[in-house]
């Protein structure tokens, strides 16, 4: 009987805290949203399940969490903690990204830069709230709307905030279809939303082959801190565009990115142990993340309107919202909002240009912050 009593004392029913319960519920909500609303299911399902796993209370001497040295979960978390997974994800993204629309309309690259205003204003906002410069830099990058970049920079600058930053970044990426449309509509007139853009020109194979190498050289000579992320992104793209390494590109954009996504999502979820995650700082990070995302969206839209003052062939300002690098979700949102006004206006291809430029822009912003704050 005593054995049973001792055993019962070690079960989750006795050791479960309110914090654990809240985190388990959050994990269930993530899984629910992924399944019923189709919000970033490839990320929210692993993160949600990871959050549930990470919040089952176990006896202290069993050492099973991501934070316990030598535990299985700690080995999975290694890739997050040391920033190994994000560059591998960038390799896969590079191998699946077609830069043609960006190459056919280079003006739209600037929208990817404009959206990064969210990163730097949030960095300033985090400083104002009392975070240290490194922590502020890691929080600011949430505005890049790029989960792997946010994890990479947080692992380098503010490891203590990593799980909160990762969850905030991925949550807001999943909520792109909810956060962006009201801002886009608020900042544009109906006439602007009806603007039709010229179809993109055909891009030659040679252009596509030269671009990854040249773009890498240009970007990283200016921001060497972005070498790892951009190196892998453009390497993946070179595998795709070189036409002679199709097998490698195929692996990078399918099996490899899937494996890394599973490990990254699950490990990030498992790192949200209530004691580490449910803090006032996490709430502030979530607030700043939402602000950051909204500013980034507004920055892209307003910059497109600004560019229209000088352009003869006008840009549909909705396209500016795709400057945040949530690929391809924000481009899809642009298409959706555009078609609400004119069902025959196809903005998706145009929106992909600032969208992929946003990926490059947020990686450069991360590189700049990393270089400057270490």
């Amino acid at each position, binding site marked *: 009987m005593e054995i049973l009593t001792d055993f019962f004392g070690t079960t989750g029913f006795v050791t479960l805290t309110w914090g654990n319960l809240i985190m388990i519920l959050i994990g269930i909500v993530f899984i629910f949203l992924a399944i019923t609303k189709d919000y970033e299911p490839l990320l929210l399902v692993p993160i949600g399940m990871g959050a549930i796993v990470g919040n089952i209370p176990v006896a202290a001497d069993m050492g099973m969490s991501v934070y316990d040295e030598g535990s299985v979960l700690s080995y999975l978390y290694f890739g997050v903690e040391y920033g190994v997974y994000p560059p591998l994800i960038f390799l896969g993204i590079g191998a699946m990204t077609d830069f043609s629309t960006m190459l056919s309309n280079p003006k739209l690259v600037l929208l990817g830069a404009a959206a990064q205003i969210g990163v730097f204003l949030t960095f300033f906002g985090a400083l104002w709230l009392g975070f240290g410069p490194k922590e502020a830099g890691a929080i600011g990058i949430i505005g890049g709307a790029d989960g792997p970049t946010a994890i990479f920079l947080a692992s380098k600058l503010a490891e203590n905030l990593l799980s909160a930053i990762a969850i905030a970044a991925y949550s807001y990426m999943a909520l792109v279809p909810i956060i962006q449309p009201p801002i886009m509509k608020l900042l544009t007139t109906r006439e602007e939303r009806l603007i039709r853009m010229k179809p993109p020109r055909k891009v030659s194979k040679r252009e596509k082959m030269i671009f990854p190498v040249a773009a890498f050289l240009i970007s990283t000579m200016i921001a060497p801190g972005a070498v790892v992320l951009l190196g892998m992104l453009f390497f993946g793209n070179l595998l795709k565009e070189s036409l*002679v390494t199709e097998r490698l590109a195929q692996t990078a954009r399918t099996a490899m990115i899937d494996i890394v996504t599973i490990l990254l999502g699950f490990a990030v979820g498992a790192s949200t142990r209530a004691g580490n995650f449910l803090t006032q700082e996490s709430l502030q990070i979530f607030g700043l993340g939402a602000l950051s995302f909204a500013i980034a969206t507004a920055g892209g839209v307003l910059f497109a309107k600004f560019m229209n003052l000088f352009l003869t062939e006008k840009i549909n300002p909705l396209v500016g919202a795709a400057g945040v690098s949530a690929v391809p979700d924000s481009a899809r949102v642009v298409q959706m909002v555009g078609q609400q006004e004119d069902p025959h206006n196809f903005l998706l291809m145009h929106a992909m240009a600032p969208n992929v430029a946003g990926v490059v822009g947020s990686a450069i912003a991360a590189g700049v912050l990393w270089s400057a704050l270490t």
Partner: protein
Amino acid sequence: MLLKQTGLTLLGQVDSSLQGSDSSKLAEGAVQALVGLMIVFTALILLSLFIAALPRVLAMLSTVWPEVDEPAANTSHTDSLVADDGAVLAAIGYVLHTEFQRQLETQDSSGQNS
């Protein structure tokens, strides 16, 4: 020397001097944010200019080194795919041959019946 003149180094110097009061820390943060944004813009403007110039450079280049359609398309096929292509062709050939034979036999038998 050149690097020391870039905004990146300026950013680093600003960061290392974050020792003062909150207001000066915020002022320095604002400078950092501004310089950081300028660096991102500079990188992407240069990228944009490069992309804009690339077709012209390639057009000039194509006079001495013309671009061939599908230059390496065949080499992207793996051996197994090439083998599969042969197998598919053989299968199509077999099906066509069988179908023609069946049609001929049908015609012959209908001719004999009539």
